[in-house]
C-alpha cells in the first residue's frame, strides 16, 4: 500500500516536472517569437540598404546624433530622479499618514495612471503656456512653456503615478512589527523610516528609477508636443518614420537608443543581486498591529508638501481635460457645450467596445505570463534567465512605433502572416508592457525569502503547489499592479499599434489620435475623458474585488498560523 503511494507520488512528481518543462518551453517560445524575432527584424532592417547588406544607416549616426543621445539621457535621468522622489513622498503620505483620505488619493493616482497620449501635455500648455489659464490668467505671466524643462516636468508627473502605486504596494507588505520593534528600541520615526523602511523598499526604488529612465528615453509624445526645438533620440526616430519614411535609419537609431538603456539595465541587475544578498534572510509577513507611523517634524512638512503639489497638479491637469470636454472657449469666455459629447456618440461606439475587449485580454494574459516568466527567472533562477529578462525588457526601452514596425516586418509573410489580425495587436500590447509586470513581481519576490519555497518543498509540495499556494498569494499586489498597468496601457497606447491596426479594427485611442492630429482638442478631450473613466472604472472594480479577497484570505492564513 505504502509503496504504491510513493510510486503514485513519484509519477505525480514526474508529471509535474514535465508540465513544468512544457510551461517553461512555451514561455521561452513566446518570448522568442513575439519579442526577440521582431527585434532581430529591426536590427536586420538597420543594416539593409538599397543593395543588400550595408552599414550606411550607421555611418553618420554617431556623430550626427550624439547630442540627441545626450539630450535623451539628460532628460531621462532628471525625470527618473524627480518621479521616483515624488513617488516616495506620495507613497509615504498615502501609506502612513492620510489613511482617511486613502481612497480619495488612491483614486487620483489611478486616474493619473491613465494618461492618454498628448492630452496631458496639451493640458499643460493650456494651463501654463503663453496664454495659459494659470500663467497668464491668474499670474499675468507670459511664459514660454516649450523646451526641456516642460518635458522633464510632464514626464516626471506622468511617471510618478505608476511609481507611487508600485511603492505603496511594497510598503503595504512591510512587516509593521519591525517598525514597532524599532520604535520600542528607541528609534525616532524618521530614523525608523530611514533605517528600516527605506532599505526594504530600495529594490522598488531602483525599479522605479530604471523604469522611469527607460520610459523617458523611449517617450516621443511629450517632447513632440512641448519640446519645441528640444529634440531627443526618440523624437528623431519619430521624424525618421513619420517624416522621412526611412526605416533603416530609424532602426539604427533604435539600436543607438538601446545603449544607455542597456547600461541602465545591467546596473539595475547588479544592484538587485547585491540587494538580494543583504535581505536574503528576511522573512516577510504582512501582519502586525496597524500602528501610527505618521511622519513628524520638518521632514514631514517637506514630504507632505511635495505630495500635495503632485496631487494638486494632477487635479488641475485632469480637471482641465474634463472641463475641455464640455466647454468651448468662445473668444475668451468659456461656454458649456455638448457638441463633443454628441460627436462621441455619433462616432462608432464599437471602437470603445473593441478597446475594452483587447485591454481585458492583454491585462489577464499579459499579467499571468509576466508572473510565470519572473517566477522562472527570479525564483527558479533558470539558465539564461538574465538574458530572457533582458529580452523581455527591450520592447519597453524602444519607442512604441518601432516595436510596431518590428511586428510588421516580422509577421508580414507566410507562414507567420499575422498582419491585419487582432492577434498581432494584442500580442504587441502584451509584450510591450511585459517588463512592468515582471519587474513588479520581481520586487515582490525579493521580499519573500527563498527559504519559504524550500520549506514548502521539504514538506512535500511540488513546484506547482509552491508556485500556486505559496508564491501566488504573496504576489497579489504585484498582480494588481500588473493588471492595472497592462489594462491601462492597452487602452491608451497608440505608438506601437498605430501601424498594426487596419481599417475596420479601430480602437478608441486611435480616434483620439485622429482628433488631436486634426486639431480638434475639444473632441480629443471628450474621447480622453471617456477612456480615462472607463479605464479607471474597470481598474477600480478589479482593485476592490481583489482587496476584498485579500482581506478574507488574511483572516484564513492567520488561523492557519495559530494552529
Amino acid at each position: 500500500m505504502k509503496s504504491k503511494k510513493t510510486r503514485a507520488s513519484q509519477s505525480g512528481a514526474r508529471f509535474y516536472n514535465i508540465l513544468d518543462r512544457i510551461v517553461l518551453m512555451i514561455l521561452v517560445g513566446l518570448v522568442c517569437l513575439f519579442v526577440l524575432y521582431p527585434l532581430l527584424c529591426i536590427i536586420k532592417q538597420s543594416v539593409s540598404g538599397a543593395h543588400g547588406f550595408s552599414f550606411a544607416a550607421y555611418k553618420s549616426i554617431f556623430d550626427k546624433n550624439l547630442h540627441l543621445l545626450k539630450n535623451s539621457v539628460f532628460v531621462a535621468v532628471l525625470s527618473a530622479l524627480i518621479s521616483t522622489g515624488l513617488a516616495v513622498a506620495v507613497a509615504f503620505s498615502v501609506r502612513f499618514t492620510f489613511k482617511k483620505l486613502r481612497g480619495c488619493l488612491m483614486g487620483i493616482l489611478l486616474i493619473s495612471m491613465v494618461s492618454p497620449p498628448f492630452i496631458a501635455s496639451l493640458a499643460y500648455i493650456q494651463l501654463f503656456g503663453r496664454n495659459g489659464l494659470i500663467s497668464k490668467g491668474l499670474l499675468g505671466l507670459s511664459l514660454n512653456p516649450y523646451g526641456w524643462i516642460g518635458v522633464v516636468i510632464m514626464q516626471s508627473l506622468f511617471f510618478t503615478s505608476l511609481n507611487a502605486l508600485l511603492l505603496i504596494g511594497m510598503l503595504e507588505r512591510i512587516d509593521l512589527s519591525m517598525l514597532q520593534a524599532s520604535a520600542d528600541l528607541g528609534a525616532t520615526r524618521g530614523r525608523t523610516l530611514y533605517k528600516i523602511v527605506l532599505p526594504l523598499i530600495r529594490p522598488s526604488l531602483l525599479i522605479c528609477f530604471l523604469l522611469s529612465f527607460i520610459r523617458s528615453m523611449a517617450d516621443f509624445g511629450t517632447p513632440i508636443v512641448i519640446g519645441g526645438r528640444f529634440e531627443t533620440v526618440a523624437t528623431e526616430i519619430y521624424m525618421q518614420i513619420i517624416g522621412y519614411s526611412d526605416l533603416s535609419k530609424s532602426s539604427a537609431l533604435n539600436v543607438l537608443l538601446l545603449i544607455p538603456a542597456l547600461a541602465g539595465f545591467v546596473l539595475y541587475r547588479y544592484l538587485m543581486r547585491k540587494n538580494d544578498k543583504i535581505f536574503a534572510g528576511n522573512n516577510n509577513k504582512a501582519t502586525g498591529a496597524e500602528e501610527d507611523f505618521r511622519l513628524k517634524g520638518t521632514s514631514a512638512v517637506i514630504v507632505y508638501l511635495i505630495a500635495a503639489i503632485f496631487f494638486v497638479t494632477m487635479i488641475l491637469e485632469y480637471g482641465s481635460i474634463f472641463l475641455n470636454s464640455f466647454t468651448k472657449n468662445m473668444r475668451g469666455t468659456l461656454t458649456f457645450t455638448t457638441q463633443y459629447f454628441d460627436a462621441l456618440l455619433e462616432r462608432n461606439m464599437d471602437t470603445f467596445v473593441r478597446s475594452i475587449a483587447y485591454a481585458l485580454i492583454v491585462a489577464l494574459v499579459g499579467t499571468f505570463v509576466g508572473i510565470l516568466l519572473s517566477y522562472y527567472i527570479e525564483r527558479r533562477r533558470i539558465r539564461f534567465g538574465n538574458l530572457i529578462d533582458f529580452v523581455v525588457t527591450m520592447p519597453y526601452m524602444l519607442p512604441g512605433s518601432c516595436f510596431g514596425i518590428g511586428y510588421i516586418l516580422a509577421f508580414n509573410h507566410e507562414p507567420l502572416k499575422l498582419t491585419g489580425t487582432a492577434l498581432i495587436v494584442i500580442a504587441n500590447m502584451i509584450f510591450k508592457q511585459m517588463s512592468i509586470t515582471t519587474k513588479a513581481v520581481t520586487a515582490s519576490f525579493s521580499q519573500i525569502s527563498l527559504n519559504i519555497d524550500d520549506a514548502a518543498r521539504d514538506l512535500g509540495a511540488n513546484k506547482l503547489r509552491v508556485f500556486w499556494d505559496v508564491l501566488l498569494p504573496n504576489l497579489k499586489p504585484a498582480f494588481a499592479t500588473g493588471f492595472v498597468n497592462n489594462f491601462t496601457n492597452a487602452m491608451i497606447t497608440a505608438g506601437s499599434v498605430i501601424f498594426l491596426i487596419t481599417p475596420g479594427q479601430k480602437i478608441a485611442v486611435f480616434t483620439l489620435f485622429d482628433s488631436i492630429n486634426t486639431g480638434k482638442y475639444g473632441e480629443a478631450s471628450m474621447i480622453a475623458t471617456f477612456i480615462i473613466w472607463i479605464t479607471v472604472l474597470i481598474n477600480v472594480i478589479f482593485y476592490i474585488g481583489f482587496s476584498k479577497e485579500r482581506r478574507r484570505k488574511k483572516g484564513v492564513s492567520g488561523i492557519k498560523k495559530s494552529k
Partner: protein
Amino acid sequence: MKKGKRLLAALLVLVMSLALAACGTDKKESEGTKKEDSKKLSGTLKVIATSENYQPLFDKFTEEVGPKVEFISMSSGEVLSKLKAEGGTPAADLWFGGGIDAFMDAKENNLLEKVDFDAADDLAADYKDSENYWFSKGITVVGFIVNNDILKEKGLEAPKSWDDLTKPEYKGEILMSDPAISGTNYAVVNALLQTKGDAGWDYFNKLNENITYYSKRGADPSTKVAAGEVAIGITYIDGTLDELKETADVSIVYPADGMPYVPEGVAAFANAENTEAAKAFIEWFYSDDENMKQLAEIDQKNTCLLVKLGIKGLELDFDQSQLMKEDLSLFGKERTAILERWNNLMGDKGEE
C-alpha cells in the same frame, strides 16, 4: 483559494473566447457580404484616409456600388513607412488624401496600382499622374492665419506676403510645421524655392530667425494661433478654419505674392486584397459630380473644381491666379534633397 482558481479559470476561458471571437469576425463578415448581392461588387474596401470625416462619402459608395468600406486615418509619412515595412502585402486597398509627394514616392517604389478608366481623361492633366497611378481629389492651398488680439497687443500689422514674414518685428511670433511631417509646409518650401530660385534658401534662413520652433503636427499652426500662443501661423486654408473664428479673433491672410499649393492624392495600392473595389471606387468617385460635391462639403473647400473642371454648383473661394506657379513633378523628385538640406540648416540650429 479554490474559488479564486475557478474564477481565474473562468476568466481565462472568457478571454480566450473573446480573442477567438475577435479574430473570427473579419472572415465571417466578408463571407456574409459576398453572398449578399451578386450584381454589385462584393467584399470590403479598406481605405486609408486623412481624417475620420469621410464616412458619408464612403456610405454613399457602399450604397451605390456595393463593397462595405472600412477606413482609418493616417498621415502620409505613416502610410509610406507602413507600406515599406509590409514588404508588398498592404493592409489596405485605397489611399484617399495626403500630399502628392508621398504618392510620387510610392509610385517610384512600385507600391501603387495603375487605374485606367474613361472619366480619367476628363480630369485636369496637371493634377494626375500621366500613367494613371495616382489622381487628386483637390488641392491644399497655403496662407497665414493671424490672431488679431495678439497683433494688437504687440502693436503689429498682419503680414501681407511671404516676404513680410522675415521682418524682424515678427521674431518669435510665427509658427510653422516641420516640412518633413507636414505636406502643407513641404509645399511651402518647395514652391518658394521654385519661385525664388537660389535666393530661396536665404529666405528660409531669415525666416528661421523668426520662428521659435517647427511644430511636429500639421494642425498646430492654426490651433495654436487660435489659442493665442503665437500671432501668426503658416497653415492650409479651408472652411474648417472658420470654426476657429468662433473661438478667437483670428483672420485668414491670402499672401499677396502667391499661395503655395499641393494636390491631395488618391490611389489604389498594388497587391492589395481587394484591388477591384479600390479601382471601382476611383472610377465611381470621378464619374459623378454629386460625389465631388459631397467631398467639397466634407472638406469644406471647393478645390475639386480644379481637378475636374466644370462641376456645377461649386465655386472657388479664391482667384486661381493667386496660386504660385509650381512644377509639381519636382515635388517628389526633390523631396529627399530638400529635406536633408532643410534639416542641416534648421534642424540643430535652435538647440538651447
